[in-house]
């Protein structure tokens, strides 16, 4: 297992957002987490990326127990995007992706201040690598534009390119298709397959069922903070409990 979580629980001021959720993610697969609004999907993603600390339960990634802050989770190889965009709007598209590469080009304050020669060489390499990632997500023509000039759909893909800059083993995508039109959603579909083909395990939190059914190989259904069902996309979508959770009546 690439990631294993045991009885994860998290509540906010008495509201149990997540209760006793266990999760096992096999490497190299596209996993999806679905569920009605308020089911705890984003909370789960925030626990898996270190943004929240669980009230109870443990997370193992690569057989190491994960604790600490988001940057520790990132260092271990867990990357993510955000439902409400967290693009660096004060930087160009290319610089956003270059910032994603921080862990692979980290330098001391002294080295940075004195512009040591190795740094200048690394800078060119970094620029090229970031440009390639922009090409992958189809944004290379925006490379030198200020990121706040990019359309919404492009920003979603920019966040994916930025997260890939950190070379994660596991990529958590929080509603990558929310607010996108069908064409843009197809781009995301293609991109997720591309990422998976590179051997990166993907966790997709998404409301667009068509996208989920098409790209994912393993689906986890959450409802009221509990795991309702999991399995292959077809078996999950035929599950009467899942249908009831979504439609609100017994099938």
């Amino acid at each position, binding site marked *: 297992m690439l990631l294993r979580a045991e009885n994860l629980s998290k509540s906010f001021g008495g509201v149990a957002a997540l209760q006793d959720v266990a999760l096992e993610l096999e490497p190299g697969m596209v996993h999806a987490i679905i569920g009605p609004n308020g089911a705890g999907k984003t909370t789960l993603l925030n626990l898996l990326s270190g943004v929240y600390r669980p009230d109870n339960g443990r997370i193992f990634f690569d057989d190491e127990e994960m604790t600490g802050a988001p940057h520790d989770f990132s260092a271990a190889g867990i990357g993510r995007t955000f439902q409400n965009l967290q*693009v660096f709007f*004060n930087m160009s598209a290319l610089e956003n992706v270059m*910032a994603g590469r921080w862990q692979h080009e980290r330098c001391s304050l002294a080295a940075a201040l004195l*512009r040591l020669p190795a740094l200048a060489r690394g800078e060119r390499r970094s620029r090229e690598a970031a440009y390639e990632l922009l090409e992958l997500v189809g944004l290379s023509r925006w490379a030198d534009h200020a990121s706040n000039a990019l359309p919404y759909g492009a920003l979603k893909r920019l966040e994916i390119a930025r997260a890939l800059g950190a070379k994660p083993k596991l990529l958590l995508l929080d509603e990558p298709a929310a607010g996108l039109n069908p064409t843009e959603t197809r781009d995301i579909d293609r991109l997720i397959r591309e990422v998976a083909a590179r051997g990166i395990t993907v966790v997709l939190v998404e409301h667009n069922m068509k996208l989920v059914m098409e790209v994912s190989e393993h689906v986890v259904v959450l409802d009221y903070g509990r795991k309702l069902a999991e399995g292959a996309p077809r078996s999950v979508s035929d599950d009467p409990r899942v249908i009831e959770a979504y439609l609100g009546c017994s099938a």
Partner: protein
Amino acid sequence: MSSFQTASSAAAPPSASRRGLAALALVAALLPLVLANAYTYDVAILVGLNAITCVGLNILIGYAGQISLGHAGFFGLGAYGSAILASRYGVPVPLALLISVMGVGALAWLIGRPILRLRGHYLAMGTLGMGVIASVVLATEDRVTGGPDGMAVPPMSLLGFVVSGEKTWYWIVAAALIAAVWLAQNLIESPRGRALRALHGSEVGASALGIDPARHKLGAFVLSAVFAAVSGALTAHYSGFITPGKASFLHSIELVTMVVFGGMASTFGAVVGAAVLTTLPQLLTVLKEYEMVTLGAVMMLTMIVMPAGLVPTLEKVLAVTRRKSV
């Protein structure tokens, strides 16, 4: 603090920054041709000293996106530290300056760890308090600091020669400013500078990429304090006299104003902001009682017309006209 978010100010590419540095060196080299007397030299030196502080403060405010309303405290502590070591303990001035600056850096590191947990308005309040404490201590510990009346500061000697006279000081300050700009630009164009700017853009976004917010903010805070302390210590030895007023809240506000006026997230903006807001009051003295009113009006108008600050706005205008002419 949302008002300190700059919309879009990409770091200048290295070539542009090298041109900027060359231009700054050229201006510094040619300026003595028009500096007619000791008074104009004095103003130019003051510009340089303020610019050193502002270049450092801009790393914190403009790039890392963290406010400080207490940096005059670091300026004052740097000045008094070096002055006291030199006058009361007979430490040679360059060494006293170095010890003082390192001491201020260490102090900033200690203060920064708890204070940088605050954000936005709370950070503004916290740093304001820090500056107030520094200036009160300097004003009341009169046995060491001379109290509100200030203290005389021994002159600096380098390689056995006593540094005196505006002309010599001009070159020292010019060299220090060019070094400060060079260091700041190197940092900003490095991966570390990118991490700082990312932090400004989105803290949670940056931390999801492995950038530790606390560590990087602290680095920027200490660095900006060191720049302020260098400027403070040089000011003390240049002017030969120092008062607690230099560490006051008002001076902190002046420094922040220079950074914002020149343009946040622009090293050269910090230099230009310091230059304009240091010389303008001198030029406006001809208006006598209307001086402060005019200064206020100029500042208000500039910020209304150019909310991004002088240098970023002019850069944008230049870029547009260049595109049109192509």
